[in-house]
């Protein structure tokens, strides 16, 4: 018995030693996420849910039990991001830094403080990237990516962005490293299409909320020039800008305190692209993420136009699905301990602020 206890203890120690970033991030995320859930009121509505489950999740959003359970999506995303980040050469301290940003970002404030579609979307963002990276390394089957995409479609059309990124990553690997080739890219295309199956079904059956609003109140046709302008604006409305400038939106909340998180995200994505090299492990990922920043908005807008017959202004909240990818490339450019510690300390400060805001600003 004593031997078993000792073996168990040493097993735990070994596990913690192997996953030091998670040993810090998981308890911290549980503490902060649950603190927010337990102290917040319901004076302000959380971001609107999308997809076939929108109505169900909106009904559950107010239930404290479900809100507590929603931390599991955050924990799942963190668990996936650790090996993923290591695969792209991110140091353990930088993993803690990007994980901390994920935990305290204004996107997560709503995504894991209430039971909505954004929590699972963030998880899907991390999972799709993990599956694509494993597939690119020759481990695992492409069918997992397709299956995951099919199921993720239940969260709405925004889930497509995660698989678009996976597709661009596999294309970047094929072009930059001559790795993979047509078969892998073919599976990724299939995954993108699979992610659209349930949203198409929802649109046909009239189920689920539309992830956007008409640019002209009441709807109506746009001229060719306005439609072109919408496509152009969607580059900014979806993805990097939407995630990096997100705020809690609570009355009297100091939005400028969250802006440094946006700087880290923007600097990570842009600098990773500026530095991208064929020879570096993170090179194809940096190019894929940068391409996603450019293509996600227009492609999503075109898909929504096909599904709903309107040029919409896309809700920025759904861009949360790309947050894990943005943070991951951000981790690859954090090259010194001082910067990582500054990010971690600032996140610690914001964690306290998150809880205070939840208590004071949502009642």
């Amino acid at each position, binding site marked *: 018995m004593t031997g078993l206890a000792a073996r168990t203890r040493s097993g735990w120690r070994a596990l913690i030693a192997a996953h030091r970033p998670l040993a810090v991030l998981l308890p911290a995320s549980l503490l902060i996420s649950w603190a927010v859930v337990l102290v917040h009121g319901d004076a302000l509505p959380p971001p609107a849910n999308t997809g076939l489950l929108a109505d169900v999740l909106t009904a559950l959003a107010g239930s404290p039990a479900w809100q507590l359970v929603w931390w599991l999506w955050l924990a799942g995303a963190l668990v996936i991001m650790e090996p993923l980040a290591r695969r792209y050469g991110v140091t353990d301290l930088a993993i803690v830094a990007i994980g901390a940003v994920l935990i305290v970002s204004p996107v997560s404030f709503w995504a894991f403080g209430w039971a909505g579609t954004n929590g699972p979307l963030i998880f899907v963002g991390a999972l799709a990237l993990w599956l694509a990276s494993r597939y690119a390394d020759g481990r695992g089957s492409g069918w997992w990516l397709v299956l995951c995409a099919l199921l993720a479609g239940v969260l709405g059309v925004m889930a497509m962005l995660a698989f678009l990124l996976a597709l661009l990553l596999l294309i970047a690997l094929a072009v930059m490293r001559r790795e993979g080739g047509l078969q892998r890219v073919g599976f990724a295309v299939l995954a993108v299409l699979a992610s659209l199956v349930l949203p198409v079904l929802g649109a046909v059956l009239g189920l689920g909320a539309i992830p956007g609003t008409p640019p002209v109140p009441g709807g109506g046709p746009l001229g060719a020039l306005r439609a072109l*302008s919408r496509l*152009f*604006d969607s*580059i*900014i409305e979806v993805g*990097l*800008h939407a995630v990096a400038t997100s705020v809690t939106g609570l009355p009297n909340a*100091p939005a*400028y*305190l969250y*802006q*440094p998180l*946006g*700087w*880290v995200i*923007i*600097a*990570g*994505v*842009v*600098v990773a*692209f*500026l*530095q*991208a*090299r064929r020879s570096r492990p993170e090179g194809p990922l940096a*190019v894929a993420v940068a391409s996603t920043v450019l293509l996600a908005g227009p492609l999503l807008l075109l898909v929504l136009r096909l599904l709903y017959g309107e040029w919409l202004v896309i809700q920025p909240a759904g861009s949360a699905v790309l947050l894990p990818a943005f943070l991951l490339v951000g981790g690859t*450019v*954090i*090259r*010194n301990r*001082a*910067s990582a510690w500054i990010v971690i300390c600032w996140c610690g400060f914001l964690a306290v602020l998150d809880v205070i805001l939840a208590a004071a600003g949502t009642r």
Partner: protein
Amino acid sequence: MTGLAIRTFHAAYADDPGFRGLLARHWPLLVTLLVAAGYTATLTLLHTWSVSPIDEVVYIDYLDKLWRQGVIHDGEYLGELARNLYACHGVIPFGRMGPVCGTDLGDPSDFPFGGFSSGAGYPPVQFWIVRVVGDALGLIPGVGQLAGWRLVGTLWLAGGLVFCYLISRLLRVTGWAFVAVALAIVASPLGYWSFSFVSTDAPMFFLGALLLWLAMRHARGARSGWWLVAVSALGATFKPTIIVAVGLVLVYLVLHWALAPHGSGRGVRGAQRVRSLLRQLWPPLLSIVAAMAVQFAWRRIQTMLQVPSETTSPGQGVEVPLSLDLIGNQFTSFLGGTIRMVVPEAEGVTSAFIPLGWLVIAGVVGAVLLLPRVSPDRALSISVLVAFIVAAPVLTLALVLATGGIFPLPPRYGIALVPGMLAVTVPLLRNRWAVRALLVYGVLLMAAWIAISVVFARWFA
């Protein structure tokens, strides 16, 4: 193909002492100057008599009255030319203001801000330069006096770019990366409003670049610190915002001293270190004192030159009470907004410039995140980040102390820090495709500004 041609040319003529050698060695600067000057001069010549919304009418009024009265007095009304510009030509993009063109323009209270000039805060030094040089440029056939004054902005830009290039040479990074980042700055909204109209921000770009270059040379023991003091004092005769560049220089020199190896002997750690710190620090400290003394002296002169007016100035309507939120917002003002802020914000136009904000954030923050991997000068990377974050709140507090009033500082007040941003961003561009993408983006923005200028010229014709 172009890259190959340039490499071949460089290899063949790099040692040539003549013009071809100059071209081979400094082609990034020459390409940048050619495109930047051609672009801003084209914009200037496309402009009509309609004025920029960034107080151009005040500056034109100053220039118009310069030889007659020397300075603008506190409490003085805008003159006839300025009122005519308001009423008959308008302010881009807002349109005509004040009484209907052709009617009586004599009542100043019919004009924005009660018809008062806000030019009294500026010493006349920069206006002497603009007037002398601009009048000469105006003599070129087809240019005219107003375009001549506006073309001085192109010269401030060119001067600033030369010193930005010299800074990049000190860091041993130039090439297409320099061209791409420099042209992105030129093609920004900041570039449009500052370098193609009469603007007091344009010389701040030049002086910011000059000060940073002098500081880097001083840190390397290659130039006397007195130059820093002299240029800072000169800058203070232009605009108080020069203080942000002087602050950058101070932080840079402190960090450069702190991060430099100082030897290991006990003596070296004691008195010699203090001496080396003082040797490094006296120029920026004296520069700050000089800049503040110049501004203080001008405030006294301004008070002495005050003239009585029949009406009370309503101010510009931008003053706000000092608050924690105001200071807090200023911490993020320069980093995200300096080169991308659009006047006015408009759907479809604003989005086009948001990537410029990304470039500044990526360059300034990324240079520190990547340390020590990409570090031609670690002190520079850290000091530029510190300056971009801290300068605006410090300037806000300084203005409160100096004038008693405050307004949210426009991000363009950080223009003197832009050369620092360029210096830390250029070394980050290691990906050829990124450089090409940035070049294409810059060229597209330039084309858009030229098209917008044509539209403005037609609207206000």
